[in-house]
């Protein structure tokens, strides 16, 4: 069978399949990201309520560095979420520059943590499995599964690795905001070890596993 015949057969087959598979355009990525962020925020708020707000939360909100910390994490999460849903489209709707935004925000956040560690002094805390690590798993498990589901449905990513990273950043940021509202470990090094690294680790593992879901 010549290659032209094979091509014609394939084209006819695909045309016939279009009948049962209406290729209706998927929703705009910003809308999809908004839905995910809303559900993620509701879940995080619910977990915060179950665990219980930290007793000094009102005092903390009067502190600039605490508000900056949370705001930066929140904005990073939003940026990564929107970028993730744009990454679900082969050409990202012409907005491939979006990929750099969450990376820059993550770099700023990392720099912020480093500055805090330097100014507060590097005193290694005693490492033990405290409630933060188990709560981190609670904060990240369902949002990670949900985000993987949303970004693998009606999706055709041409950058599966970057999509996995964006999902990891998004889930990490959301979980970080949640745990900073429940846990009173506030020194920079405690923050890094108990509030950032567990999420990053979970995000990386989830992202690695999730790559297979992005094959199409």
């Amino acid at each position, binding site marked *: 069978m010549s290659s032209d015949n094979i091509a014609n057969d*394939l084209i006819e087959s695909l045309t016939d399949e279009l009948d049962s598979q209406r290729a209706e355009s998927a929703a705009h990525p910003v809308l999809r990201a908004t839905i995910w962020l809303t559900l993620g925020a509701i879940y995080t708020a619910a977990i915060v309520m179950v665990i219980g707000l930290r007793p000094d939360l009102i005092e903390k909100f009067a502190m600039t560095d605490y508000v900056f910390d949370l705001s930066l994490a929140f904005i990073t999460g939003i940026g990564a979420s929107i970028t993730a849903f744009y990454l679900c489209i082969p050409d990202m709707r012409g907005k491939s520059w979006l990929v750099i935004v969450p990376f820059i925000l993550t770099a700023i956040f990392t720099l912020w943590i480093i500055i805090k560690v330097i100014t507060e002094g590097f005193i290694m805390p005693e490492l033990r499995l405290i409630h933060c690590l188990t709560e981190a798993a609670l904060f990240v498990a369902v949002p990670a599964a949900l985000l993987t589901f949303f970004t693998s449905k009606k999706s055709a990513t041409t950058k599966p690795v970057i999509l996995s990273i964006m999902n990891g950043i998004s889930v990490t940021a959301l979980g970080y905001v949640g745990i900073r509202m429940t846990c009173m470990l506030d020194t920079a090094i405690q923050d890094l070890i108990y509030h950032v690294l567990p999420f990053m680790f979970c995000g990386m593992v989830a992202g690695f596993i999730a790559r297979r879901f992005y094959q199409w």
Partner: protein
Amino acid sequence: MQNNSLDWDQLAKASQTGDKKAYNQLLKEIYPYIQNVLYPTLANADWVDDLTQNILISVHKSLNTYAADRPFKPWLHAIINFRRADFLRKHYSKKKDKQMPYDEALLEKQYVTDPAHAGEYKDIEKQLADLPEKQRDVFVKMKIKGYSAKEIAEEMDMTESAVKVSAHRTMNKLKDKLG
């Protein structure tokens, strides 16, 4: 070329509403275009047809991600570049497994200069046996026993198009496994 781009935008938009005629025309028009994009970038011209067909299937699977208010070509090129990179990555990773010892010069020469001998080192029947039963039956009937797609469809209670797509995908899978 400018008119082609506008036509493809409109054809893709119509295809998303289920217009089969528009979709058929779109696929027929982009097929030679994809080949022309791939020819200068691939070392082996035999790869172009296989990869073009894979890209066509990818276009079919991802048509719902095309935004009708945006140009079609950049969307198509993103898929072409992705599939080409994927194809070359798999191809070159497989080549690492085919390193022959240098003291077996005669064997190496046969392998390098006569691709037909590659089949002597592979068990085609074993690869067929590893396929799901229905997929294997369709492939064997169509490609080995010479049944038509219509005959297979009637016998196995499938649509003709499903039979053709199944056989095509099985062929690609065997090519990947057998080299």
